Every structure is written in structure tokens, then in C-alpha cells.
């Protein structure tokens, strides 16, 4: 347990009468890209929000770097970088100013701020457009900027909720490449959620298959494909769900 970056045990979350999570458990190891895969409404975003300290669990335990996310919210926040699924940017600020704003919230030292923003601008890869107001950006450019904002902070744990959501094929490929390169370069632990099985298969070391608030199975894409006798992760997921219903 001590080697785990993220430890989740019997996590439950209820919104009124709706059970979003019904007792899920998993752990994420240092340096791995861990995928949470499932259809819409499966509980992926709720899981990430709880790890990100935004939402309180109804019951269960969630620890990040050994710190309880409810008791030590402020400390946990210093370790994490979070990219929400449908996040927006400040439209009247330039791309550079968007990065600067968040860098100033995370770092006190002006040199650290400057370094982070320059690194973010490099990750975003927007060239001179980084100095344009983001209201002029395409959806893909905004998503790249948001990803850059998350990664420029060099978090020990990056939480990426549907990082390629709503992007066209080219933009999605570019974002995936960025995530893979970043994880390799900095050996950062990443948890990403997606309902795109191809994306998860390409990026993740291990995957949790989640449906209706329950984790159906966990394993590497290769293990899951073998276990469910499937040619790809999508098929493995379908077989796993069918199996869990029997």
C-alpha cells in the first residue's frame, strides 16, 4: 500500500438517491498511466473529482500519497494537476495569461512561475497564437492549452478526465502524443478517464473497467484482452460487462 500513489478502498458516493459509486477499490502505482474506462454515467468523473478533493465521498477511503483526501485537502491539492472533462478557459485572457494565472496560484517564486508558463507554452504548441485571446481559439487549441496548464505544473499526480473529449481525430492524436511523451519524460503518475477504448489501450499501463458505479475488472490492456478472449479492449469491456451481469 505504501508504494501506491493513489489508494481507493470501498469508495461510495451518493447524490441524493442516486448511487454514483457503489464501493469501488483500486490502487495506482508510481509512474503508471492508469485508465478508468466506462460508458457515460459509469462514475468516472465522480471518481476523479473525489481524488481531486472536489467532491466528498459518502463512505470509503481515498488516499493520495498516503494522505486522506477529505482530511488533508490542501496538502493533496499541491500534488495534483486536474483537467476536468468539459473545462473552459478564460476567453478574454490570452493563452499565455491563462497559463500565467494558474502558475501564479501554484508557485510563489516568480522564476518558477516564468519557467512553468514557458514550459506550458511549449506543451501547448500554439506558437505565436499563445499571445492571442483564447476566444479566438478552436476547441482543439483550447484543449491543448488546458492540458498544458495541467502538465506545466509538473504535478506528481495528473488527473485527466476525458482528455480528448470533443476533439477531432488530428487534435485527439496530438493530445495523446503529448500525454505519452510527458509521462515518459517526467515519470509522472497519470489517471485518465475515457470512454474511448482505443485511446486507453494506446496510453494506459493498467485499466479499470467501470460500469454503473462498480469496477468490473482491473488489469493491463493485454491481460484484459486475454482474459475476455477479445481482439481489442472494446470487445473485452463488452464481454466483461456481460460476464458481470450473469
Amino acid at each position, binding site marked *: 500500500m505504501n508504494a501506491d500513489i493513489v489508494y481507493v478502498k470501498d469508495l461510495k458516493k451518493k447524490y441524493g438517491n442516486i448511487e454514483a459509486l457503489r464501493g469501488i477499490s483500486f490502487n495506482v502505482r508510481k509512474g503508471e498511466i492508469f485508465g478508468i474506462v466506462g460508458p457515460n454515467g459509469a462514475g468516472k468523473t465522480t471518481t476523479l*473529482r473525489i481524488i481531486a478533493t*472536489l467532491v*466528498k465521498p459518502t463512505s470509503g477511503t481515498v488516499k493520495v500519497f498516503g494522505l486522506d483526501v477529505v482530511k488533508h485537502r490542501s496538502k493533496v491539492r499541491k500534488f495534483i494537476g486536474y483537467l476536468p472533462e468539459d473545462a473552459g478557459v478564460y476567453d478574454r485572457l490570452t493563452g499565455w495569461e491563462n497559463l500565467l494565472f494558474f502558475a501564479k*496560484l501554484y508557485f510563489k517564486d516568480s522564476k518558477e512561475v516564468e519557467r512553468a508558463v514557458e514550459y506550458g507554452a511549449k506543451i501547448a504548441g500554439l506558437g505565436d497564437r499563445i499571445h492571442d*485571446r483564447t476566444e479566438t481559439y478552436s476547441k482543439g487549441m483550447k484543449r491543448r492549452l488546458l492540458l498544458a496548464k495541467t502538465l506545466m505544473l509538473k504535478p506528481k499526480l495528473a488527473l485527466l478526465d476525458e482528455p480528448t473529449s470533443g476533439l477531432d481525430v488530428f487534435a485527439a492524436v496530438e493530445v495523446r502524443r503529448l500525454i505519452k511523451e510527458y509521462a515518459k519524460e517526467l515519470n509522472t503518475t497519470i489517471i485518465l478517464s475515457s470512454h474511448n477504448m482505443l485511446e486507453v489501450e494506446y496510453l494506459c499501463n493498467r485499466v479499470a473497467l467501470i460500469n454503473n458505479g462498480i469496477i468490473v475488472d482491473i488489469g493491463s490492456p493485454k491481460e484484459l484482452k486475454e482474459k475476455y478472449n477479445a481482439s481489442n479492449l472494446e470487445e473485452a469491456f463488452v464481454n466483461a460487462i456481460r460476464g458481470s451481469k450473469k
Partner: protein
Amino acid sequence: MSKINVIMWKEFTDIIRDYKTIIATVLLPLIVLPLLGLTNFVLTKQQPPIIVVVDDDHSKGVIGNETISSSDIAYMLAYYVNATGRAVAYQANSMNDSFHSYPYFDIVLVIKKGFIENLTSFNRIAYLSKIQRVGSAKANEASLIVEWVKNWVSDYVASKKIKIIAHEAGIHVNPDSIKKPIDFEKVQYVAPTGEKKTLLDELRAQTARLLMFALFFIAPPIVTFISDSIIGERERKTIEMLLTAPLSKTELLLGKVFATTILGMLAAIADIAGLLIYFYLLYMSYGLMTLMVDPSLLGVHALMVFMTSLLTSSLVLPFIVRTKTIRSAQIVSSAVMSIATIVFFMSLFVEIPNLPLIIRIPLYFIPFTHCALVIYNYMYGYTLNLSIHLVITIISSLVLIVIAHKVFDEERILIGPSR
């Protein structure tokens, strides 16, 4: 403090680049109100009221040893009207002539047949006939000028008659003691404490009263900015990243409140500057001095603009952080604006400290009342009361911010009360 500054920087940059909002809240009042006054000033000068004096009497009479004719009276009336500089008078020979030559008249004054005979008698009244055009915006002002001029001429003739009677009676008479046996001495201005004050103090008090009302202008931009600042973050989907940043709720709320307060102050100062220019131009148009602005009054007012801004945003904040949509935020904002309007409009006409206790006590529970009372007490130089109301305003703001902090629930902001 540094993270509060970062939030403020972002809020400033964001709003200053929102040209439409800036124009609507800051520039528009600064342009529209003076423009309103300027229009009044220019058009008043361009279109003075037109008064036509018609002599239908064409006769002469004698008062004492002085011969007076109806044409003299017509000349005097026209002369005095022109002498005011605020209306133009013409003389005409007949009613038909006046309607034909001056179709845009505002008032026609007719010296009727028999006027001089009545004027020179000692037991009859000489009547002028006043014909006023309907639908004329200037007719009321023309009527006022005619009234003054009629009084001047009437006064002149009355003095002559009194002197004749006194001469006949062989007594020395001051005509004023007969015409106005009772009059006011020079007005003495005093404070409620009995301390002597001057006309300037009275003008300053009137200005302070106007500035108390002007605090009303603060509420609308503040509630708009603060609602957008919190609810807008959610609607633009930027709140989630902000909430995961290493930033305390206090830093986030204070950053937004201070930024809103300063922006609201700018808007309010523009409003107040516009209002003062408007009144100055009114003074230029009508010559009625009703304002007296001094640096200390402006200083107190600037302080109260800041405090009212802070109070308004603090008052809205606990509701806004619990509100899910812009629409419900607007309902809360409208309620706060209505309360501010009632209090500040009331302070223009009502002396709150002199109201019966049963009305005053509920008013004291409305924090805006204390903002108005700070200026009221400054007006009369009640330093202790001023300080008490200022402290109440500060404490109210702080308590409301603490309440907002307590009820601020990140999960509720993200997801809503239930799903």
C-alpha cells in the same frame, strides 16, 4: 495576500477587456448624465421662452404728477422680461398681430382696455390678461418670469401710489412698510445642536443628501460583477480547475469581492461624476446654485462608495455561492438592488434618525441604512455617530463574508444541491 492579488488581477483583466460591460456600466453614465445636462443647457439657451406683450388699451393716465401710458407699461414689461436674460419679449399691437408674427409664443400678456384707468385709480385693480400656449415645455418657465416681472412693475406703481397718498396725508411713509408689513430677516442657518451655519453649509448639506442618494448607483454594477464572477465561472466551466488549485476559500472569495468592489467603485464614481456634472450644467442653465462640493465631503463620500461597494458584494455573496443558475442569482441581485434603492431614495427626503423608533429599528437591520447615516452624520458634524455607523457597516460586511465562507460548498457549486 498574494493569491488574492492573483484572483484580482484575473478578474480585472477579464472585465476590463469586456468592452460592452465597461461601456454600459462605467462610460455610459459618465457620458449620458452630462449629455443630459448639456442638452438642457444648450437647448435652453437656444430656445428661450417667448413672451409677447400686447397693448390693447392705447391710453394714458396720471399718477400724481406723472403721466403713465399703456405703451409705457408694455415697454416696461418687455424690458424687464429681456433683462432677466432667460426669456425674449416682443411687443405687438394686437392679439391677431401677436399670433400671426410670433406663432411660437409661450405666453401673450395683454394690457386690456381700461387697464390704465384702473391702474391710476386708488380703488380698483388693473388686470393683465395672460394667454398661455398648450403643449409648450417652456410655458411654465415663461409663466414664472412673467410673474416676477408683473410683481416688479406692480411694486413700482404701488410705491408711487403710496407716496401720493402719504403726500396728501402729509405724513412720511416708507412704501415697503405698507406693501410688505411683515417680512423675514436674513435667514439664519443652524445645526440641530444650535451651532451657527452659513448658506454654504446648507448647500453642502444638500450636496451630501444628493450624494447619499448617489450611493444607489453602486448596487447595480456590483451585483452584476459579483454574480458573474462566481456563477459565470461555473457557466464558462472554469470553476472546477480553480477549485482544485491550492487556494483557500477565503482567498478565492476575498479576491473576487475586492476585485468586484474596486470595479464597482469605478462604475459608481463615473455615475456620481456624471450626476455632479449634470447638476452643474443645470446650474449653468437655470442659475440655481444647489451644490457645494468640498474635498472633505468628497473624501467621506469616496470612503462610503468603497464601503457600500464592499457591503453590496458581501450582501449578495452568501446567496450567490449557494445559487445554481444566473437566473436565480439575478433574482437575489434584484432583491438587493431594490432594498438599496428604497434606502438611498428615502435618504434623499427623510431624516432617518428622526423617524419613530418602530420604523427606525427595522431600518437599522438593513446594512445600507448605516452607509447613508455615515454621510448624514458627517453633514451635521456628529463624529461619534458617524464612527458608530461606519463600524457597523464594516462589521456587517465582514460578518456577511464569513457567512459566505461558511456556506460556500465546492460540491454544491459543481454539482448543485441534488442530482
